[in-house]
């Protein structure tokens, strides 16, 4: 290799090395930083520790966990918070990088490290409505809390709950949830919430059939069809005299 080529090569590479130190965000940074960190563009070590990358310790130097979602790093009240309720105070542990990625090039193709409800403390995981608004459709407007009966914390849809598995809401039973689930408690139900089914009437009808235990209606009745009666251990019976624990004549 001739001396001139060596010199030209060396000069070019030295210039590139200098550029890397003067403009690190352009030369080695994987994409633009988020707008809030724009001022740190040329100060890589504000967030990155040499040889170990960005660390939570460096994040919390500016972002105090107790202030996140409430105050800015300058101590001013956040006027338009991104979430309705601050939740960083309810995280199981401080691991900023588990969710956050500041460089556009890294953020775009990041499959892991997005928000995960599992990072929240157990109590906070139950308080869905402190962060999420209930949908405005007629069904959800009737419901308060207990979101996890139908929805998982991984995905809103598909909702896994299928009411037909318990009771088909057909004909006269297409009513408001609270008619059967008093106070929106979906762990319980009552069939005596309407005029048709009074306790006295139901009791009389079952006693006539020799059925003494009729507390759990849906154990045998899964729809409004009076002929569609399923008795535990005896399968489905169509019409006729039937019922669990009934007296034999």
């Amino acid at each position, binding site marked *: *290799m001739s001396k001139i080529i060596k010199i030209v090569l060396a000069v070019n*590479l030295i210039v590139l090395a200098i550029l890397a130190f003067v403009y690190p965000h*352009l030369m080695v940074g994987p994409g633009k930083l988020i707008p809030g960190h724009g001022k740190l563009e040329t100060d890589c070590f504000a967030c990155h520790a040499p040889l170990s990358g960005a660390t939570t310790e460096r994040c919390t130097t500016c972002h105090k966990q107790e202030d996140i979602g409430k105050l800015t790093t300058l101590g001013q009240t956040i006027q338009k918070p991104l979430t309705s309720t601050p939740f960083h105070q309810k995280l199981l542990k401080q691991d900023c990088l588990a969710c956050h990625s500041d460089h556009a090039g890294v953020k775009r193709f990041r499959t892991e490290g997005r928000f995960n409800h599992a990072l929240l403390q157990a109590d906070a995981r139950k308080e869905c409505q402190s962060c999420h608004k209930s949908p405005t459709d007629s069904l959800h407007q009737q419901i308060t809390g207990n979101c996890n009966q139908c929805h998982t914390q991984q995905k809103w849809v598909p909702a896994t709950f299928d009411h037909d598995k318990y009771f088909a809401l057909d004909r006269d039973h297409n009513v408001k949830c609270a008619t059967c689930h008093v106070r929106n408690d979906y762990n319980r139900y009552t069939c005596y919430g309407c005029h048709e089914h009074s306790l006295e009437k139901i009791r009389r009808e079952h006693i006539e059939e020799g059925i003494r235990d009729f507390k759990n209606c849906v154990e045998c009745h899964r729809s409004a069809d009076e002929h569609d009666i399923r008795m535990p251990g005896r399968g489905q019976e169509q019409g006729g005299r039937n019922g669990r624990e009934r007296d034999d004549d």
Partner: protein
Amino acid sequence: MTTPATASLWRSHILPFTLLVTLLGVATVIGDYLLHRLDLVWIGRYLGIPGTLLIIGSLIYSLRKRKVITSGNVKTWLSLHEIGTWLGSLMVLVHSGIHFNAILPWLATIAMGINVISGMVGKMLLARSREHVQGQREHYQLRGLSKNEVEQAVFWESVTFDAMTKWRKVHIPIFIAFAVLALGHIVSIFLFWGWQ
């Protein structure tokens, strides 16, 4: 009108060269597409490591040719050099993807691309040189050398052929530029990346 010699040059040298370069480009696009399609982009992020190791490993040929190491058949080392650099380059190209973020890694990628093309030109020139030194084969055979010794002698004649010497003057500086740029990228990754 195409002469037989021109047709031979096209068929024996330019066509394989074009095919190898095109194949590299096509394989890169397919690899990148598949990783995105299968949601396996993270593999591309780490593909730079085996790619670089393959390229470094293939440099054993250069050491063998300069007789820094003496073991192994130099022709075999050359074949491994060609395959290793092509495959390593493919991995690095998929690793770089088509994402324009920082300048330094892109300069390294471009330098690598030029290096690969230069290497393929070298491969083409070497084949041409071999043809030119075929006449020497008989000379060595008449001197009573064994078949293997004749092959080795013809090989050394071809790699030291004038055209090859000139080509090397271009290939080596390109390689050094690529190596330094790649090293800069690797150092910056070690410095800033969180290996967790």
